[in-house]
């Protein structure tokens, strides 16, 4: 399950992820992270069965946690099935089926957004 964890760094530099791993023993996979001087946003992947535990622990440490069900969206009217996105995606979300139709394995998406400007037809977007 993908969790979007956001936290403020104004109150100090609490190592939210590290403490959560240490105290819960759940192995968290960091898919992408953006941290600047005032705030951080980290997208993590955790086993479904441990997500409640991880969520409550992170919230205890002051983070905001949102379960992420979204992935990149494709406008099927705009998409022409060229495949320009396929080699751009670091997570192999896009592939062709037997009919050379573009298919998405949405659960792999980490919403990095790299595919959005790479689509010549503006068919891809992130909803957040």
């Amino acid at each position, binding site marked *: 399950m993908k969790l979007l964890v956001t936290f403020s760094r104004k109150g100090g530099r609490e190592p939210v992820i590290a403490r959560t791993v240490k105290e819960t023993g759940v192995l968290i996979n960091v898919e992408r992270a953006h941290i600047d001087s005032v705030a951080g946003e980290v997208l993590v992947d955790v086993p479904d069965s441990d997500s409640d535990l991880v969520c409550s622990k992170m919230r205890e440490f002051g983070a905001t946690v949102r379960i992420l069900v979204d992935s990149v969206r494709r406008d099927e009217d705009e998409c*022409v*099935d*060229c495949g*320009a996105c*396929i*080699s*751009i995606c670091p997570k192999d979300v896009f592939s062709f089926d037997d009919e*050379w139709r573009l298919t998405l394995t949405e659960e792999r998406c980490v919403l990095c957004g790299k595919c959005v*400007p790479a689509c*010549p037809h503006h068919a891809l977007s992130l909803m957040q």
Partner: protein
Amino acid sequence: MNDKKYFMQKSIDLINTRIRDGNARVVTAEEMPAIVDELGEEGALHEVDVVTTGTFGAMCSSGAFFNFGHSDPPIRMERVWLNDVEAYAGVAAVDAYLGATQLSETKGDRYGGAHVLEDLVAGKTIELRAFSKGTDCYPRTTLKTEITLDDLNQAVMCNPRNAFQRYGAATNASSDRVMNTYMGSLLPNCGNVSFSGAGVLSPLANDPQLRVIGSGVPIFLCGAPGMVIGEGTQSSPASGFANLMVTGNMPGMTTDFLRAATFTGYGVSLYVGLGIPIPVVDLDVVRSTAVRDEDITTSIIDYGVPSRDRPVLRDVSYAELRSGSVEIGGEEVKTSSMSSFRKAREVAAALAGWVREGKMELFLPTRHLDTATRVHPLRETEHVPRVREIMQRSIPCIGEDEEIRTAARTLLKGETNHLPVLDADGRVVGIVTTYDISKAVVSPGSGKRVADIMTRRVIRTTPEEAVDIAARKLELNNISALPVVDDNGHIIGLLSAIDLGKLFGGRWSR
């Protein structure tokens, strides 16, 4: 293996008679190789009358002629805009040619000529603006109105070069940033390969000798019947890169086969669906239409090198490109197509439908294209300035083990802001600027030696690099000087933003 006796040729009249009678055997170029395998070449000639091809990809060199009709009072349109995209109006009073890559003057690369073409075909209303200085016969000076495709006397698509036989595949081996090109995003360190073209379905790949594709041949263009005009601009059949100039009337076209696109950081282009029905008149046509993706090769080119003659990393077949990954230097690299194979199939299938239903008859070329044509580079008569001509040759440098204080002194003495850092062999290993030194003074904990504070990722140039390329490096990296190094990495000079000023004040000014 086969006892039947077949004719070795089939006339175009016989093929057209069968089309009219509704019993022509039409297959797509994708189906043809297996048919030839099964029936043999003579069997395939006997069995198949028409092979349809198709491609759907970005074809920048596209556009359309319009005749708008005369207004009252009349105007001689000197300049014309369609939804703020300027069209070329130097063709009589109320005519213009709109190129697909022309950008909107208000929306930038989000909207361009290609979008106007798509909007017209979609039936949308377009704002037409025109300007004139006024003449005795055409007194009006400005005009603004709204038009749709139906309002135009003519809207004739005329594409100077479409349907290249094949395209070079692109990768980025030499630049350390993501490059935005007409071949899409190219990730650094050969992070991906981008290619274009329909391979087995590509019209010209099915007739590389240009025997049955030539002037006057009917085609499928964006969903409407069209025609080959002749040799496309920049066509180079002698090197395997033939292309076609084509035309078709826009009424009848559909947005299923005509789509505007934007390549981020590059600009606007038009995705064109184009198919050519190939009459199977003899064994040579059977052989050329039996081509497979495995047989069609192209080169993987390093777009990271900013010159016309970019290095070829390896040759590759369309079968490998379409497999999803290719090997470069022992590593698997993912591939992306810029053109749509599914759409190419749709073009070939729609065209096959037209021929089966008797909607399109076939013709041999009224004039053959020259297979010996080869594209030449531009003849340049103006001198292209090189870095060596404007760089500073005697520049202060510093060793990586020197103290920061020494670096500061050297900068002051040399009245410069950039100090290349050299190793014991005189190779550039870093650069130190006055900014780095100021930073070191403010936070003294960062170290005492030059090596502790220098920037190690140095953007460099070479003496023979064109000044334009070096200037672009400065701009893209937001820096103001580049060390100039020879082939061995030894420093031979420095090019700073100030040196660029020499180009304007000195001998290159006009």
